């Protein structure tokens, strides 16, 4: 996988003031995870489950910080009830979701959550922006940062498997 567009994402997040990176282990977010761990200016926090990231990002905002949650589409399902904190408190929320169960998926176990990721997020009042090509990265991440932190909106950027490449089985 290219590291060029992930590096562009990292630069934009940092320019946008993001200083808390909450993540679960994931191949699609590998570069962002490594970059955040190596960056002494940010907190890079390994979670045991994605929903911890929902609480953590709200806490960051309460204290004047900005966070991003890096997760896979399968983790979206783990966040649902805690997104009521985001919505009830009108907290900014920014997540980057690496898609599985998407374009060219070869593992049928990934299909159910992958196919329901966007409808589930939208049902929870999270606005979804999708990236399928490296050329869309800059404008989409910039838009997401503005919408999340200026409007205090919940935003999910879905990184599609056209962009990431489907895992081979």
């Amino acid at each position, binding site marked *: 996988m290219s590291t060029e567009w992930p590096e562009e994402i990292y630069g934009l997040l940092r320019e946008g003031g993001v200083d808390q990176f909450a993540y679960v282990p994931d191949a699609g977010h590998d570069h962002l995870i490594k970059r955040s761990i190596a960056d002494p200016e940010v907190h890079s*926090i390994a979670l*045991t489950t994605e929903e911890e990231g929902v*609480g*953590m990002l709200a806490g960051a905002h*309460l204290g004047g910080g900005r966070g991003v949650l890096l997760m896979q589409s399968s983790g979206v399902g783990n966040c649902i009830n805690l997104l009521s904190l985001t919505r*009830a408190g009108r907290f900014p929320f920014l997540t980057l979701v690496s898609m599985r169960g998407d374009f060219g998926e070869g593992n049928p176990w990934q299909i159910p959550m992958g196919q329901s990721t966007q409808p589930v997020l939208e049902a929870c009042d999270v606005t979804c922006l999708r990236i399928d090509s490296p050329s869309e990265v800059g404008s989409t991440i910039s838009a997401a940062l503005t919408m999340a932190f200026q409007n205090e909106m919940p935003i999910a950027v879905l990184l599609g498997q056209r962009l990431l490449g489907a895992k081979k089985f």
Partner: protein
Amino acid sequence: MTDPNTDPNKGTRAEGRTATGHLDRRVAVKTLLDMQGDVLIVAGLAGAKGDVVAAVGDDPRVFGFGGAMGAAASMGLGLALAQPNKRVIVVTGDGELLMNVGTLATIAVANPSNLGIICVDNEHYGETGFQRSHTGLGTDLAVMAQGGGIGAVRTVRETAELEDAGEMLRNSNGAAFVLLKVAVNEPPKMRTVWDASWHKNRFREALLGHP
């Protein structure tokens, strides 16, 4: 079994319930919080929030939950990381902490020097139907905190142990965890505004000077 004639919870939803702890939750939480000075507080839903509001009043530097059960500890982590020069105390209950017990590991690994957790353990789910929780049936959340890797852990069963635990919460250089083994009862409800957005803005106004 409790004797219905001497049950202190007679006539309340906690009637007939017993726990291994006997501390008064309102007194124990207030004693610990009074020792902490100028802190930011995240109060988990239901009983824990009541204990905090009873202890410190309707203070802008308290963010209290009305739902989203399981998120108090992780919210405290994000807040502690964003405010390294302030001490952050999370007050939560055994039921809430059991829902996301992995957060203890996440906090231990991040190990912020300014984050303390108080778990008010009455061994019951007081907000719902006062059903027994795992902590009354053998599960020890202090051991789980220790096993998660938190270095500073205390279990408090007696009033005399509160001072040492409060000192640890105030002075610990890493994440700290206090398990309060309290009696099961139903203290009076503490009314607060339900609007979480209002609480968020008030908290940020007090801390940052803007909503």
